[in-house]
């Protein structure tokens, strides 16, 4: 064995995820069904541009809506703190008020790039949901998404990623109070991501 190979073989490397998944209480079939249909209905309403309705009926007022940046670092450094002050950064770091402001902008009719209307289609898949381990009865829901956007004549993008939602039941209806959107891109390849998921 060469010196280099020995060196590599002797070192504890962080190559793949060795952590077991969190053990959580499973949802009964009817709740699982509710969650799935809830997420799918939500995607349809957004596709239909019913954004104000979505804002008022699908989110809680304490929502944290984020799309963090995934820094592309060597595995050995993935958990190392970033240099300097690092409040984190992301395309979205929104609270309820900021989401509302983004929607107000769209409602002004002065967003030239949204006229003519652009097509946007959300596809949700791999929905998995469990009760949160804190005993609150809240649900953590994972889903993978594909977003297809078609703009102008031939401007077209397809983006993939994952949503992780925390949902709570308010007056008998599920609402999201925490949504983390993981885009599977370090460099956002679409010209913008000014849309909701």
């Amino acid at each position, binding site marked *: 064995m060469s010196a280099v190979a020995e060196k590599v073989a002797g070192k504890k490397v962080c190559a793949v995820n060795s952590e077991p998944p969190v053990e959580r209480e499973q949802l009964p079939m009817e709740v699982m069904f509710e969650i799935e249909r809830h997420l799918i209905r939500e995607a349809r309403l957004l596709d239909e541009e019913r954004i104000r309705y979505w804002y008022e009926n699908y989110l809680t007022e304490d929502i944290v809506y984020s799309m963090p940046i995934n820094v592309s670092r*060597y595995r050995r450094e993935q958990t190392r703190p970033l*240099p300097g002050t*690092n409040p984190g950064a*992301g395309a*979205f770091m929104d609270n309820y008020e900021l989401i509302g402001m983004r929607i107000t902008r769209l409602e002004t009719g002065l967003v030239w790039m949204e006229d003519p209307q652009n097509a946007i289609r959300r596809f949700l898949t791999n929905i998995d949901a469990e009760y949160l381990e804190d005993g609150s009865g809240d649900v953590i829901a994972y889903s993978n998404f594909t977003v297809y956007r078609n703009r102008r004549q031939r401007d077209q993008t397809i983006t993939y990623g994952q949503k992780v939602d925390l949902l709570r039941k308010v007056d008998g209806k599920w609402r999201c109070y925490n949504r983390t959107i993981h885009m599977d891109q*370090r460099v956002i390849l679409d*010209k913008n991501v000014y849309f909701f998921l």
Partner: protein
Amino acid sequence: MKDVSALIQENGAVQDRSIYWDDDIYLLEQERIFARAWLFLTHESQIPLPGDFIATRMGEDEVIVTRHTDGSLKAFLNSCSHRGNQICYSEMGNSKSFTCAYHGWSFGTDGKLINVPLENETYYNNIDKNRFDLRQVAQIDSYRGLIFATFDPTAPPLMDFLGDMAWYMDAFMDVPGGTELLGPPMKSILDCNWKVPVENFIGDGYHVGWAHAAALDAIQSPLTSMKGNAPGYEPKTSGIQVATEGGHGMGIIWDAAAALHVNPAYGEWINYRTEMVREKRGEWGAKLYNGHWDASIFPNCSFLYGTNTFKHWQPAGPRSIEVFTWTLVEKEMPEELKQYLSVMNMMTFGTAGMLETDDGENMEGCTGTNKGWVTRQGKVYSGMGQINEGPHDELPGIVSDGIVCETSYRGFYRAWADMMSGKSWEEMSRGGSRRSIKEVA
């Protein structure tokens, strides 16, 4: 290729459209601008410790920027001197060395070749390792934390290159404790020529009211009065635009640093700081510190002071750029304020930003139409404000009255034409009248 000397006309007010499209002009830019000018790399706050590094680009050249073990700054090509493979694929981190994934050659944090696997067994110790150090930049330096480098050993020192631009920027860069960039940078793509966002940031006060009408309406801030460029808005008294020597420049809206903010905390900070700035830099210093700036540092770095976005537009072919976005803050600001400014920067000028999305669309449009051969034979125009600009009694550069004009567009394109001519640094007029900083202070 077209005659380079004819691409910019009328003292910078007319641009040939081919400069936003043609491959050969783009390649010449790589040689005559990006291989010669001082280029922004990162902020010292991003690589504070020995061994810290970031990977970025200078033009289209991949580079690694490090804090060497002796504390000095280094930058060198991120390409192995053996067979050329890219060495480092991590965008940032801390490392004692960089090892190529192909054959395992490894290099120090100063780019020196330190290890060749099987050196004895294969080269029989007959390899002069000094020959294979990674190519260094010719000069590297920092201005109040902002790190720049150039591949041109004949380039003037960084402070000469920045010239009067640094005098202006001192108003907010030279604060107690200094500044920092909050990372990690957002990275995104726009399919536009790299010069389009540079010109937008350097001096486009004209588009603000119209292109961003919806955002100004939604944010409900002091700038909302600009919405729709409606009558009643008086651009003439609103601020100034400046073209400084070397193609840098800015537009400043007076008393508007905190104008795009909904949270009063930032305005309070500005008020608190202003007295210190006034004491140190006088009335103009205080006025500059309180203004909202749109600015570009030649060739491809821009910022908005007040909105606190800091942009690096990296060329990726003639019709595409990669955009790096950081948040620029003062180090001594309270943590909650930094956090808030970071959120609002992304809210306004991130890739999902309420204003950035308006701009991105226009920048792509200004590039894409030039695909037409006939279109490309035409010109575009930045002639606004030529009759109300000139040397200023107290400020350096060419100064216009009013934020809405294209004075600094012209300064940028004069400098661009100068560099594209291939002249030596001594021969370049570099685009502006210059008063000495001493004369001003």
